Protein backbone atom coordinates (compact mmCIF):
# COMPACT_ATOMS: atom_id res chain seq x y z
CA UNK A 1 0.00 0.00 0.00
CA UNK A 2 2.88 2.27 0.66
CA UNK A 3 3.96 2.02 -2.94
CA UNK A 4 2.90 5.21 -4.68
CA UNK A 5 3.59 6.24 -8.22
CA UNK A 6 3.76 9.60 -9.85
CA UNK A 7 0.29 11.12 -10.22
CA UNK A 8 -1.02 10.66 -13.70
CA UNK A 9 -3.86 12.69 -15.16
CA UNK A 10 -6.07 10.86 -17.59
CA UNK A 11 -8.84 12.49 -19.55
CA UNK A 12 -11.70 10.07 -19.91
CA UNK A 13 -13.72 11.58 -22.68
CA UNK A 14 -15.07 13.64 -24.37
CA UNK A 15 -14.70 10.87 -26.95
CA UNK A 16 -14.75 7.69 -24.95
CA UNK A 17 -16.87 4.57 -25.39
CA UNK A 18 -18.21 4.80 -21.85
CA UNK A 19 -18.86 8.50 -21.59
CA UNK A 20 -22.61 8.24 -22.40
CA UNK A 21 -22.46 11.17 -24.73
CA UNK A 22 -19.98 13.99 -24.64
CA UNK A 23 -18.50 14.37 -21.25
CA UNK A 24 -15.07 14.49 -19.70
CA UNK A 25 -13.84 12.98 -16.49
CA UNK A 26 -10.47 14.35 -15.52
CA UNK A 27 -9.13 11.49 -13.46
CA UNK A 28 -5.94 11.60 -11.44
CA UNK A 29 -4.46 8.15 -11.19
CA UNK A 30 -1.96 6.59 -8.85
CA UNK A 31 -1.13 3.45 -10.79
CA UNK A 32 -4.62 2.11 -11.39
CA UNK A 33 -6.17 3.80 -8.38
CA UNK A 34 -8.23 6.94 -8.82
CA UNK A 35 -7.09 9.65 -6.44
CA UNK A 36 -8.89 12.64 -7.83
CA UNK A 37 -11.67 13.42 -10.22
CA UNK A 38 -13.08 16.47 -11.86
CA UNK A 39 -16.19 16.71 -14.01
CA UNK A 40 -16.02 18.74 -17.17
CA UNK A 41 -19.48 19.23 -18.62
CA UNK A 42 -21.11 21.33 -21.27
CA UNK A 43 -20.23 19.58 -24.50
CA UNK A 44 -23.91 19.08 -25.22
CA UNK A 45 -25.14 22.37 -23.81
CA UNK A 46 -27.85 23.68 -26.09
CA UNK A 47 -29.32 26.28 -23.81
CA UNK A 48 -32.75 24.72 -23.67
CA UNK A 49 -33.70 26.87 -20.69
CA UNK A 50 -32.96 30.01 -22.68
CA UNK A 51 -34.61 28.68 -25.84
CA UNK A 52 -37.78 27.88 -23.92
CA UNK A 53 -38.16 31.47 -22.80
CA UNK A 54 -38.78 32.41 -26.41
CA UNK A 55 -41.32 29.74 -27.27
CA UNK A 56 -44.92 29.24 -26.32
CA UNK A 57 -45.90 26.70 -23.73
CA UNK A 58 -46.91 24.13 -26.29
CA UNK A 59 -43.87 24.70 -28.45
CA UNK A 60 -41.69 23.76 -25.51
CA UNK A 61 -42.97 20.20 -25.44
CA UNK A 62 -40.71 19.06 -28.30
CA UNK A 63 -37.79 20.69 -26.53
CA UNK A 64 -38.32 18.54 -23.47
CA UNK A 65 -37.99 15.48 -25.70
CA UNK A 66 -34.39 16.44 -26.16
CA UNK A 67 -33.47 16.44 -22.49
CA UNK A 68 -33.21 12.82 -21.56
CA UNK A 69 -33.49 11.22 -24.95
CA UNK A 70 -33.80 7.76 -23.48
CA UNK A 71 -36.94 8.76 -21.63
CA UNK A 72 -38.68 11.44 -23.67
CA UNK A 73 -42.14 10.41 -22.57
CA UNK A 74 -41.50 11.12 -18.92
CA UNK A 75 -39.95 14.46 -19.81
CA UNK A 76 -43.11 15.39 -21.67
CA UNK A 77 -45.10 14.15 -18.73
CA UNK A 78 -43.23 16.23 -16.14
CA UNK A 79 -43.40 19.40 -18.19
CA UNK A 80 -47.05 18.99 -19.04
CA UNK A 81 -47.93 18.33 -15.41
CA UNK A 82 -46.07 21.45 -14.35
CA UNK A 83 -47.88 23.59 -16.91
CA UNK A 84 -51.23 22.14 -15.94
CA UNK A 85 -50.48 22.89 -12.32
CA UNK A 86 -49.53 26.43 -13.29
CA UNK A 87 -52.62 27.05 -15.38
CA UNK A 88 -54.97 24.97 -13.27
CA UNK A 89 -56.10 22.62 -16.00
CA UNK A 90 -57.92 19.38 -15.29
CA UNK A 91 -57.34 16.52 -17.69
CA UNK A 92 -59.72 13.70 -18.59
CA UNK A 93 -59.33 10.47 -16.76
CA UNK A 94 -58.49 8.39 -19.80
CA UNK A 95 -55.59 10.72 -20.46
CA UNK A 96 -54.25 10.20 -16.98
CA UNK A 97 -54.20 6.47 -17.54
CA UNK A 98 -52.63 6.78 -20.96
CA UNK A 99 -49.93 8.97 -19.50
CA UNK A 100 -49.24 6.47 -16.76
CA UNK A 101 -49.04 3.63 -19.29
CA UNK A 102 -46.61 5.57 -21.42
CA UNK A 103 -44.52 6.64 -18.45
CA UNK A 104 -44.20 3.11 -17.15
CA UNK A 105 -43.33 1.72 -20.58
CA UNK A 106 -40.73 4.44 -20.82
CA UNK A 107 -39.35 3.53 -17.41
CA UNK A 108 -38.93 -0.09 -18.46
CA UNK A 109 -37.26 1.00 -21.66
CA UNK A 110 -34.90 3.37 -19.89
CA UNK A 111 -33.94 0.79 -17.30
CA UNK A 112 -33.35 -1.77 -20.02
CA UNK A 113 -30.89 0.47 -21.75
CA UNK A 114 -29.28 1.25 -18.41
CA UNK A 115 -28.66 -2.43 -17.74
CA UNK A 116 -27.31 -2.96 -21.22
CA UNK A 117 -24.87 -0.09 -20.99
CA UNK A 118 -23.81 -0.95 -17.46
CA UNK A 119 -22.94 -4.46 -18.56
CA UNK A 120 -21.07 -3.07 -21.51
CA UNK A 121 -19.03 -0.96 -19.16
CA UNK A 122 -18.38 -4.02 -17.07
CA UNK A 123 -16.95 -5.57 -20.19
CA UNK A 124 -19.60 -8.01 -21.31
CA UNK A 125 -18.90 -7.57 -24.97
CA UNK A 126 -22.25 -6.08 -26.12
CA UNK A 127 -24.31 -9.23 -25.58
CA UNK A 128 -26.54 -8.02 -22.73
CA UNK A 129 -26.82 -4.70 -24.53
CA UNK A 130 -28.25 -6.37 -27.59
CA UNK A 131 -30.68 -8.44 -25.56
CA UNK A 132 -31.87 -5.35 -23.72
CA UNK A 133 -32.18 -3.42 -26.93
CA UNK A 134 -34.25 -6.20 -28.40
CA UNK A 135 -36.79 -5.72 -25.63
CA UNK A 136 -36.49 -1.96 -25.79
CA UNK A 137 -37.26 -2.17 -29.47
CA UNK A 138 -40.61 -3.73 -28.67
CA UNK A 139 -41.47 -0.73 -26.51
CA UNK A 140 -40.25 1.69 -29.13
CA UNK A 141 -42.48 -0.07 -31.64
CA UNK A 142 -45.42 0.61 -29.36
CA UNK A 143 -44.51 4.26 -29.04
CA UNK A 144 -44.10 4.50 -32.78
CA UNK A 145 -47.58 3.09 -33.16
CA UNK A 146 -49.02 5.70 -30.84
CA UNK A 147 -47.22 8.85 -31.84
CA UNK A 148 -45.33 8.09 -35.02
CA UNK A 149 -41.80 8.40 -33.75
CA UNK A 150 -39.35 6.27 -31.89
CA UNK A 151 -37.18 8.64 -29.93
CA UNK A 152 -38.64 12.11 -29.66
CA UNK A 153 -42.26 11.37 -29.02
CA UNK A 154 -43.84 14.76 -28.37
CA UNK A 155 -46.94 12.85 -27.36
CA UNK A 156 -48.31 14.65 -24.35
CA UNK A 157 -50.11 17.92 -24.69
CA UNK A 158 -51.18 20.48 -22.17
CA UNK A 159 -54.59 19.21 -21.19
CA UNK A 160 -54.24 15.75 -22.62
CA UNK A 161 -52.35 13.74 -25.15
CA UNK A 162 -52.02 14.46 -28.84
CA UNK A 163 -54.12 11.52 -30.08
CA UNK A 164 -55.98 8.60 -28.68
CA UNK A 165 -54.27 5.22 -28.90
CA UNK A 166 -54.98 3.11 -32.00
CA UNK A 167 -57.07 -0.03 -31.56
CA UNK A 168 -54.15 -2.42 -32.01
CA UNK A 169 -52.23 -0.78 -29.19
CA UNK A 170 -53.94 -2.42 -26.24
CA UNK A 171 -53.52 -6.04 -27.37
CA UNK A 172 -49.87 -5.34 -28.10
CA UNK A 173 -49.23 -3.82 -24.69
CA UNK A 174 -51.05 -6.71 -23.06
CA UNK A 175 -48.80 -9.14 -24.84
CA UNK A 176 -45.76 -7.17 -23.83
CA UNK A 177 -46.88 -7.10 -20.22
CA UNK A 178 -47.50 -10.82 -20.34
CA UNK A 179 -44.08 -11.73 -21.65
CA UNK A 180 -41.94 -9.14 -19.90
CA UNK A 181 -41.68 -10.85 -16.46
CA UNK A 182 -40.39 -14.00 -18.12
CA UNK A 183 -37.77 -12.04 -20.01
CA UNK A 184 -36.67 -10.20 -16.88
CA UNK A 185 -36.24 -13.60 -15.25
CA UNK A 186 -34.12 -14.75 -18.15
CA UNK A 187 -31.89 -11.70 -18.00
CA UNK A 188 -31.56 -12.05 -14.27
CA UNK A 189 -30.41 -15.58 -14.86
CA UNK A 190 -27.82 -14.26 -17.27
CA UNK A 191 -26.65 -11.42 -15.08
CA UNK A 192 -27.66 -11.35 -11.46
CA UNK A 193 -26.02 -14.62 -10.48
CA UNK A 194 -22.93 -14.12 -12.55
CA UNK A 195 -19.95 -14.29 -10.19
CA UNK A 196 -17.87 -11.88 -12.18
CA UNK A 197 -20.67 -9.34 -12.21
CA UNK A 198 -21.10 -9.74 -8.47
CA UNK A 199 -17.38 -9.36 -7.93
CA UNK A 200 -17.29 -6.21 -9.98
CA UNK A 201 -20.36 -4.58 -8.46
CA UNK A 202 -20.89 -5.75 -4.87
CA UNK A 203 -19.46 -3.29 -2.43
CA UNK A 204 -18.17 -1.07 -5.21
CA UNK A 205 -18.85 2.63 -5.18
CA UNK A 206 -20.85 2.74 -1.98
CA UNK A 207 -22.96 5.85 -1.50
CA UNK A 208 -24.07 5.85 2.14
CA UNK A 209 -27.59 6.85 3.04
CA UNK A 210 -26.75 10.20 4.63
CA UNK A 211 -24.44 11.13 1.81
CA UNK A 212 -27.04 10.25 -0.78
CA UNK A 213 -29.62 12.50 0.86
CA UNK A 214 -27.17 15.30 1.41
CA UNK A 215 -25.97 15.18 -2.17
CA UNK A 216 -29.55 15.40 -3.49
CA UNK A 217 -29.33 12.08 -5.25
CA UNK A 218 -32.69 10.91 -6.45
CA UNK A 219 -34.46 8.05 -8.08
CA UNK A 220 -32.88 4.60 -8.15
CA UNK A 221 -29.57 5.98 -6.86
CA UNK A 222 -31.23 7.31 -3.72
CA UNK A 223 -33.33 4.20 -3.26
CA UNK A 224 -30.31 1.94 -3.68
CA UNK A 225 -28.80 3.73 -0.69
CA UNK A 226 -31.72 2.62 1.43
CA UNK A 227 -34.03 5.64 1.31
CA UNK A 228 -37.59 4.74 0.53
CA UNK A 229 -38.37 7.84 -1.47
CA UNK A 230 -40.39 7.48 -4.62
CA UNK A 231 -42.41 10.49 -5.70
CA UNK A 232 -45.05 8.18 -7.11
CA UNK A 233 -45.66 7.11 -3.51
CA UNK A 234 -44.76 10.11 -1.35
CA UNK A 235 -46.33 12.76 -3.55
CA UNK A 236 -48.61 10.91 -5.94
CA UNK A 237 -49.27 12.73 -9.17
CA UNK A 238 -51.65 11.81 -11.95
CA UNK A 239 -53.40 8.60 -10.90
CA UNK A 240 -50.51 6.82 -9.25
CA UNK A 241 -52.39 6.65 -5.96
CA UNK A 242 -54.77 4.13 -7.50
CA UNK A 243 -52.15 1.49 -8.20
CA UNK A 244 -50.72 -1.10 -5.92
CA UNK A 245 -46.98 -1.36 -6.27
CA UNK A 246 -43.91 -1.58 -4.13
CA UNK A 247 -40.85 0.60 -3.98
CA UNK A 248 -37.73 -1.55 -4.13
CA UNK A 249 -35.06 -0.30 -1.77
CA UNK A 250 -31.43 -1.32 -1.72
CA UNK A 251 -29.46 -1.91 1.44
CA UNK A 252 -25.86 -0.90 0.86
CA UNK A 253 -25.90 1.65 -1.91
CA UNK A 254 -23.30 -0.01 -4.09
CA UNK A 255 -23.37 -0.53 -7.84
CA UNK A 256 -25.10 -3.86 -7.46
CA UNK A 257 -27.93 -2.29 -5.47
CA UNK A 258 -28.43 0.33 -8.14
CA UNK A 259 -28.61 -2.42 -10.70
CA UNK A 260 -30.93 -4.51 -8.55
CA UNK A 261 -33.25 -1.60 -7.76
CA UNK A 262 -33.71 -0.96 -11.45
CA UNK A 263 -34.39 -4.59 -12.25
CA UNK A 264 -36.98 -4.71 -9.49
CA UNK A 265 -38.52 -1.48 -10.66
CA UNK A 266 -39.05 -3.02 -14.05
CA UNK A 267 -41.14 -5.73 -12.41
CA UNK A 268 -43.10 -3.13 -10.47
CA UNK A 269 -43.68 -1.14 -13.64
CA UNK A 270 -45.11 -4.22 -15.25
CA UNK A 271 -47.45 -4.52 -12.27
CA UNK A 272 -48.57 -0.93 -12.66
CA UNK A 273 -49.11 -1.50 -16.36
CA UNK A 274 -51.28 -4.53 -15.69
CA UNK A 275 -53.49 -2.53 -13.34
CA UNK A 276 -53.61 0.51 -15.58
CA UNK A 277 -54.65 -1.59 -18.56
CA UNK A 278 -57.42 -3.13 -16.51
CA UNK A 279 -58.71 0.19 -15.22
CA UNK A 280 -58.33 2.18 -18.44
CA UNK A 281 -61.62 4.08 -18.89
CA UNK A 282 -63.16 5.23 -22.13
CA UNK A 283 -63.65 8.85 -23.05
CA UNK A 284 -62.00 11.95 -24.31
CA UNK A 285 -58.25 12.38 -24.33
CA UNK A 286 -57.95 16.14 -24.49
CA UNK A 287 -59.58 19.06 -22.78
CA UNK A 288 -59.89 22.20 -24.78
CA UNK A 289 -56.87 24.32 -24.06
CA UNK A 290 -56.13 27.46 -26.05
CA UNK A 291 -53.23 27.15 -28.42
CA UNK A 292 -51.60 30.23 -27.00
CA UNK A 293 -51.92 29.47 -23.35
CA UNK A 294 -51.48 32.42 -21.00
CA UNK A 295 -51.26 31.18 -17.43
CA UNK A 296 -51.75 33.71 -14.68
CA UNK A 297 -48.75 35.33 -13.08
CA UNK A 298 -47.14 32.88 -10.75
CA UNK A 299 -44.66 30.12 -10.37
CA UNK A 300 -44.81 26.40 -9.94
CA UNK A 301 -42.54 23.49 -9.29
CA UNK A 302 -43.87 20.26 -10.73
CA UNK A 303 -41.97 17.04 -10.32
CA UNK A 304 -42.36 13.41 -11.24
CA UNK A 305 -40.41 10.26 -10.65
CA UNK A 306 -38.58 9.84 -13.90
CA UNK A 307 -36.52 6.76 -14.70
CA UNK A 308 -33.35 8.61 -13.72
CA UNK A 309 -34.77 10.27 -10.64
CA UNK A 310 -36.79 13.27 -9.65
CA UNK A 311 -37.41 15.27 -12.77
CA UNK A 312 -38.77 18.70 -11.94
CA UNK A 313 -39.80 21.74 -13.88
CA UNK A 314 -39.76 25.12 -12.24
CA UNK A 315 -41.86 27.49 -14.31
CA UNK A 316 -42.43 31.18 -13.76
CA UNK A 317 -45.21 32.82 -15.70
CA UNK A 318 -45.68 36.51 -16.34
CA UNK A 319 -49.04 36.07 -18.02
CA UNK A 320 -47.55 35.99 -21.48
CA UNK A 321 -47.58 33.19 -24.01
CA UNK A 322 -44.07 32.05 -23.15
CA UNK A 323 -42.70 31.04 -19.75
CA UNK A 324 -40.75 33.78 -18.04
CA UNK A 325 -38.38 31.28 -16.54
CA UNK A 326 -38.11 27.64 -17.47
CA UNK A 327 -35.86 25.69 -15.17
CA UNK A 328 -35.31 21.98 -15.31
CA UNK A 329 -34.24 20.02 -12.29
CA UNK A 330 -32.14 17.38 -14.03
CA UNK A 331 -31.83 14.18 -11.99
CA UNK A 332 -28.80 13.03 -13.92
CA UNK A 333 -26.83 16.17 -13.12
CA UNK A 334 -27.60 16.03 -9.43
CA UNK A 335 -26.76 12.35 -9.23
CA UNK A 336 -23.32 13.26 -10.50
CA UNK A 337 -22.72 15.46 -7.45
CA UNK A 338 -21.54 12.59 -5.29
CA UNK A 339 -19.55 10.89 -8.06
CA UNK A 340 -16.21 12.07 -6.74
CA UNK A 341 -16.79 10.67 -3.27
CA UNK A 342 -17.88 7.38 -4.73
CA UNK A 343 -15.04 6.98 -7.16
CA UNK A 344 -11.95 8.08 -5.24
CA UNK A 345 -9.98 5.10 -4.00
CA UNK A 346 -11.33 2.68 -6.54
CA UNK A 347 -9.62 1.42 -9.63
CA UNK A 348 -9.96 3.01 -13.04
CA UNK A 349 -12.21 0.21 -14.21
CA UNK A 350 -14.49 0.79 -11.21
CA UNK A 351 -14.65 4.50 -11.90
CA UNK A 352 -16.20 3.73 -15.27
CA UNK A 353 -18.67 1.31 -13.75
CA UNK A 354 -19.66 3.65 -10.93
CA UNK A 355 -20.23 6.43 -13.39
CA UNK A 356 -22.28 4.05 -15.51
CA UNK A 357 -24.35 2.98 -12.52
CA UNK A 358 -25.68 6.52 -12.14
CA UNK A 359 -27.41 6.19 -15.50
CA UNK A 360 -26.34 9.57 -16.74
CA UNK A 361 -27.74 10.91 -19.96
CA UNK A 362 -25.78 13.89 -21.10
CA UNK A 363 -28.67 15.43 -22.97
CA UNK A 364 -30.23 16.05 -19.61
CA UNK A 365 -27.08 17.00 -17.74
CA UNK A 366 -25.99 19.68 -20.15
CA UNK A 367 -29.39 20.70 -21.46
Amino acid at each position, binding site marked *: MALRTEPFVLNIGPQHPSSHGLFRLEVTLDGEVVTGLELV*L*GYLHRGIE*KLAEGRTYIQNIPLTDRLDYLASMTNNFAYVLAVEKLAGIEVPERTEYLRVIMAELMRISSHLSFIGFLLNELGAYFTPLFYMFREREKILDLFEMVCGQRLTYNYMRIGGVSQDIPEEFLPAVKRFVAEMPRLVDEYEQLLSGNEILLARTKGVGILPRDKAI*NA*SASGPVLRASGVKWDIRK*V*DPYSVYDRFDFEVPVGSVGDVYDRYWVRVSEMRQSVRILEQALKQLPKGEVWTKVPGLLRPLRGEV*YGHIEGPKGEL*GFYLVSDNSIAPY*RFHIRPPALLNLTALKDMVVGWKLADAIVIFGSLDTVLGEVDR
Partner: protein
Amino acid sequence: MTVTLKGEEVAKKIAHSFPMAIITANQTAIIVTPDSLYQVARFLKATPEFDFDYLTNLTAVDYLDYFEVVYHLTSLKHNHSLVLKTRCYDREKPSVPSVVSLWQGADLQEREVYDLMGITFSGHPNLKRLFLWEGFPGHPLRRDYL
Protein backbone atom coordinates in the same frame (compact mmCIF):
# COMPACT_ATOMS: atom_id res chain seq x y z
CA MET B 1 -48.68 13.47 -0.27
CA THR B 2 -45.86 15.95 0.22
CA VAL B 3 -47.20 18.84 2.27
CA THR B 4 -46.07 22.22 1.05
CA LEU B 5 -45.52 24.35 4.10
CA LYS B 6 -46.98 27.81 3.95
CA GLY B 7 -44.37 30.52 3.88
CA GLU B 8 -46.20 32.69 6.38
CA GLU B 9 -46.41 30.02 9.03
CA VAL B 10 -42.78 29.09 8.73
CA ALA B 11 -41.87 32.76 8.80
CA LYS B 12 -43.61 33.13 12.14
CA LYS B 13 -41.59 30.31 13.58
CA ILE B 14 -38.35 31.67 12.28
CA ALA B 15 -39.10 35.26 13.19
CA HIS B 16 -38.07 35.04 16.83
CA SER B 17 -34.70 33.53 15.96
CA PHE B 18 -33.96 35.76 13.01
CA PRO B 19 -36.06 38.87 13.31
CA MET B 20 -34.17 40.79 10.65
CA ALA B 21 -33.92 37.99 8.14
CA ILE B 22 -37.33 37.84 6.56
CA ILE B 23 -38.23 40.29 3.83
CA THR B 24 -41.66 38.92 3.08
CA ALA B 25 -43.46 35.67 3.28
CA ASN B 26 -46.48 34.61 1.31
CA GLN B 27 -48.51 31.48 0.73
CA THR B 28 -45.92 29.75 -1.37
CA ALA B 29 -42.55 31.02 -0.30
CA ILE B 30 -40.48 32.68 2.33
CA ILE B 31 -38.08 35.36 1.21
CA VAL B 32 -35.04 36.17 3.30
CA THR B 33 -32.14 38.58 2.96
CA PRO B 34 -28.98 37.21 1.38
CA ASP B 35 -26.95 37.96 4.50
CA SER B 36 -29.06 35.77 6.73
CA LEU B 37 -29.70 33.05 4.17
CA TYR B 38 -27.07 30.71 5.48
CA GLN B 39 -28.24 31.01 9.08
CA VAL B 40 -31.86 30.48 8.10
CA ALA B 41 -30.96 27.52 5.95
CA ARG B 42 -28.94 25.98 8.75
CA PHE B 43 -31.79 26.57 11.16
CA LEU B 44 -34.26 24.94 8.79
CA LYS B 45 -31.99 21.97 8.33
CA ALA B 46 -31.10 21.49 11.99
CA THR B 47 -34.47 22.10 13.65
CA PRO B 48 -36.18 18.76 14.21
CA GLU B 49 -39.57 20.30 13.52
CA PHE B 50 -38.55 21.14 9.94
CA ASP B 51 -35.64 18.80 9.31
CA PHE B 52 -35.07 19.88 5.73
CA ASP B 53 -32.37 17.39 4.89
CA TYR B 54 -32.90 17.32 1.14
CA LEU B 55 -32.29 20.20 -1.22
CA THR B 56 -34.51 19.34 -4.15
CA ASN B 57 -33.83 22.18 -6.46
CA LEU B 58 -31.81 25.34 -6.60
CA THR B 59 -32.22 27.91 -9.28
CA ALA B 60 -32.32 31.61 -9.90
CA VAL B 61 -34.71 33.90 -11.72
CA ASP B 62 -33.81 37.24 -13.19
CA TYR B 63 -36.59 39.78 -12.60
CA LEU B 64 -34.46 42.58 -14.10
CA ASP B 65 -34.79 44.63 -10.89
CA TYR B 66 -33.33 41.87 -8.82
CA PHE B 67 -32.22 38.28 -8.92
CA GLU B 68 -34.19 35.76 -7.00
CA VAL B 69 -32.41 32.61 -5.90
CA VAL B 70 -34.91 29.86 -5.22
CA TYR B 71 -34.32 26.89 -2.95
CA HIS B 72 -36.78 24.03 -2.91
CA LEU B 73 -36.27 22.21 0.35
CA THR B 74 -37.77 18.86 1.24
CA SER B 75 -37.78 16.83 4.39
CA LEU B 76 -37.67 13.14 3.69
CA LYS B 77 -38.65 12.39 7.27
CA HIS B 78 -41.72 14.60 7.61
CA ASN B 79 -42.48 14.57 3.89
CA HIS B 80 -43.01 18.28 3.63
CA SER B 81 -41.44 20.91 1.47
CA LEU B 82 -40.75 24.61 1.51
CA VAL B 83 -39.69 27.21 -0.99
CA LEU B 84 -36.99 29.47 0.34
CA LYS B 85 -35.99 32.51 -1.65
CA THR B 86 -33.51 35.26 -1.44
CA ARG B 87 -33.17 38.43 -3.42
CA CYS B 88 -30.13 40.14 -4.75
CA TYR B 89 -30.45 43.69 -6.03
CA ASP B 90 -26.94 44.15 -7.31
CA ARG B 91 -26.71 43.52 -11.05
CA GLU B 92 -22.99 43.98 -11.36
CA LYS B 93 -21.74 41.63 -8.69
CA PRO B 94 -24.63 39.75 -7.15
CA SER B 95 -23.55 37.54 -4.34
CA VAL B 96 -25.30 35.00 -2.17
CA PRO B 97 -23.79 32.76 0.50
CA SER B 98 -23.25 29.21 -0.60
CA VAL B 99 -25.12 26.38 1.05
CA VAL B 100 -22.80 23.61 -0.13
CA SER B 101 -21.60 23.00 3.41
CA LEU B 102 -25.21 22.25 4.40
CA TRP B 103 -26.35 20.35 1.34
CA GLN B 104 -23.74 18.91 -0.95
CA GLY B 105 -26.42 18.72 -3.62
CA ALA B 106 -26.11 22.46 -4.07
CA ASP B 107 -22.62 22.04 -5.49
CA LEU B 108 -23.30 21.61 -9.18
CA GLN B 109 -26.50 23.63 -9.10
CA GLU B 110 -24.74 26.67 -7.66
CA ARG B 111 -22.06 26.32 -10.27
CA GLU B 112 -24.75 26.21 -12.92
CA VAL B 113 -26.43 29.34 -11.58
CA TYR B 114 -23.04 31.05 -11.40
CA ASP B 115 -22.36 30.06 -14.97
CA LEU B 116 -25.65 30.98 -16.56
CA MET B 117 -26.95 33.71 -14.28
CA GLY B 118 -23.74 35.23 -12.96
CA ILE B 119 -24.55 35.06 -9.27
CA THR B 120 -21.49 34.46 -7.11
CA PHE B 121 -21.91 32.04 -4.25
CA SER B 122 -19.48 33.09 -1.58
CA GLY B 123 -17.97 30.14 0.22
CA HIS B 124 -18.41 27.66 -2.59
CA PRO B 125 -15.39 25.34 -2.64
CA ASN B 126 -15.01 25.14 -6.41
CA LEU B 127 -16.91 27.93 -8.08
CA LYS B 128 -16.11 27.48 -11.75
CA ARG B 129 -18.28 27.64 -14.82
CA LEU B 130 -20.13 24.39 -15.30
CA PHE B 131 -21.31 24.32 -18.90
CA LEU B 132 -19.71 27.23 -20.69
CA TRP B 133 -16.01 27.73 -21.03
CA GLU B 134 -13.95 30.16 -19.00
CA GLY B 135 -14.00 33.50 -20.69
CA PHE B 136 -17.44 33.18 -22.20
CA PRO B 137 -18.83 36.69 -22.43
CA GLY B 138 -21.84 37.31 -20.25
CA HIS B 139 -24.30 35.05 -18.55
CA PRO B 140 -26.88 33.71 -20.99
CA LEU B 141 -29.84 33.16 -18.73
CA ARG B 142 -30.08 36.79 -17.71
CA ARG B 143 -33.04 38.45 -19.34
CA ASP B 144 -30.91 41.22 -20.78
CA TYR B 145 -28.49 38.83 -22.49
CA LEU B 146 -29.12 38.70 -26.17
